[in-house]
């Protein structure tokens, strides 16, 4: 089966050639390389498509484990230069609208971040994993969504669709990290078009964030004109203890990897001057029980905001909402 991954890049293809995971390259054209890589699972060739400077597309016919490890190693050895996609749950649902549902996966894992006592006091679920495939997948998802006790915990992490266009079809399994497994189809071009469409949707989201939400000041004859506003993450329910919540999120550990200095700035509000240790971006957070204001500063990547938001959805509040300026 064909495996595909979209990755976000802040480096050039020439820099990529120096990546620790890359053993050999064959340049089919300036925009398409074959790249040899080896890992604990296997060794093999990947095809890397550079036609979009910001979002590269990597293809492989190798097995899933080999491909997943290869992508992990490529991303890890490049620090902040390369990153995976962090597709919010709402956007995964949007992908579902591109075709007929053939499967869903819901992954919520508070126990990966928060201790048992905190979960007991604050959350209805320690973890919640639902993995279903088949014709009734959409029906299952709709039933779950209409159930009040559970609907706030339904963050789609993966979706399978069958997409038909002009008599041609393709069956795709798409994760919230921007990886695809093509499970069948009649036209490879339709797969490429599907990947491009999802890439463009994500690119537009990132562009909206970077155009409107990077804090800075534009030089004037005298003084500076304010630029940008914070991104807001609104919780579906108030966070009972903001300080405790932040102590598990801003601790320089996986999965958030946020380092920072946290201090109380109001009766129930806190501020963090921090760094996203995935890529070194400087951030600031102001948090009340109802929302987070996330400030990104010049040089920061919009992917930082999507990573933080997607992790909040996956580990604390799947119904949290990202509030950004309209594109």
């Amino acid at each position, binding site marked *: 089966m064909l495996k595909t991954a979209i990755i976000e890049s802040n480096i050039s293809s020439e820099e990529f050639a120096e990546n620790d995971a890359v053993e050999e390259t064959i340049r089919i054209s300036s925009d398409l390389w074959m790249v040899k890589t080896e890992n604990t699972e296997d060794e093999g060739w990947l095809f890397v498509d550079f036609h979009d400077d910001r979002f590269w597309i990597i293809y492989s016919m190798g097995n899933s484990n080999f491909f997943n490890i290869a992508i992990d190693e490529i991303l890890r050895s490049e620090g902040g230069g390369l990153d995976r996609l962090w597709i919010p749950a709402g956007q995964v649902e949007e992908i579902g609208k591109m075709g007929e549902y053939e499967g869903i996966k819901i992954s919520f894992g508070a126990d990966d971040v928060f201790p048992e006592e905190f979960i007991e006091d604050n959350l209805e679920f320690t973890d919640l994993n639902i993995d279903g495939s088949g014709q009734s997948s959409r029906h299952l998802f709709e039933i779950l969504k209409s159930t009040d006790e559970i609907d706030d915990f339904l963050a789609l992490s993966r979706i399978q669709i069958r997409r038909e266009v002009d008599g041609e079809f393709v069956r795709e399994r798409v994760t919230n990290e921007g990886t695809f497994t093509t499970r069948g189809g009649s036209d490879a071009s339709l797969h490429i078009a599907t990947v491009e469409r999802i890439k463009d949707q994500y690119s537009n989201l990132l562009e909206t964030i970077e155009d409107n939400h990077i804090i800075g000041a534009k030089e004037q004859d005298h003084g500076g004109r304010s630029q940008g506003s914070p991104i807001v993450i609104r919780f579906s329910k108030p966070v009972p203890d903001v300080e405790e919540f932040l102590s598990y999120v801003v601790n320089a550990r996986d999965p958030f990897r946020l380092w920072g200095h946290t201090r109380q700035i109001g*009766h129930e509000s806190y501020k963090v001057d921090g760094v996203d240790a995935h890529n070194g971006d400087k951030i600031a957070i102001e948090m009340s029980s109802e929302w987070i204001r996330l400030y990104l500063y010049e040089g920061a990547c919009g992917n930082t905001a999507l990573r933080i938001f997607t992790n909040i959805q996956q580990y604390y509040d799947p119904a949290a909402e990202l509030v950004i300026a309209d594109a």
Partner: protein
Amino acid sequence: MRELSWHTHQINLWIALSKFQPTFSTTLGEIGYECDVIEERLYLHDGDGNDIIHPDVVLTESEDSHSLVVDCKSEEVDPDQLRRYLRLNENEDQLVIQGLVNDVESDNLTADTVLSSFSELSGEDVLDEFAIVHFDQDPYSGLAIWNLDGHEFEDKDVKEQFPINIKPSEPLPTGHYPFDIYEADKEAMVSNIFSTVISLSMKEGELSIDDILDHSHPYWDKLGQGKRDELRDRVEIIYLELLNSGLNEYLEKIAGTEGREWRRTSKTIQAVQRETDYYVNEVLEELPQARLDHDAWSSESSDEDNEE
């Protein structure tokens, strides 16, 4: 409990009022105002002589060519300062001529002169030529922003926006203009410089005082020379104190990875995380204090024992 000096809070609030801001109010942004932080002198000269004013922020609506020239006050007003601001009447064109307002024809510009404060300035002897804005913060009932009776804005559109009510009132937005030279901004400044140093060490490996300033304060190089120098002096002191407190050995390890390999940096970053409060407190203890007659903390680290 507050994060910043009242002066720095107000600069952030005026900026926030002009921005997309679902947790605050975008009142002035919705009617077309954009915010410039100035902190630079404006010369006013006419038949009566020369005067200088230092507006903190100027908000401008370029379509109607109207500006709000704001001076952020603490608790008192200075009669001489008010006298100087009054001379802006009939001299609004100087805002354009001297480059404090852009994108507007100098002949068309009209302006409201505004005093803002977290205190009530209504008891002060302020002429009605001045618009007065009162930020009235209560942790339980929210933030109310009043335009005081008798000191209304001349611009009808602006006048109609008040009062502005925001709930909850905390936390106030502070990320646009993160710190200034005032004693009450000290912890915010140390915390911000600390995060900037960690970020630059991860991303660049090397850093200079200018790099730290560029990445810690969006406005530092766009303010008047006097304010720039004062910010630079203080940032340099804080950086040296951070290094002296023991952070330097961690920074070398972080910088050595050039932002690559989370596995190689994570232990170091986690070690710094455990000591974060310690470093901030150590630096705060070492910094010079503000004088009793001054709001700004001193950048003079002179040792009085050695003074003759």
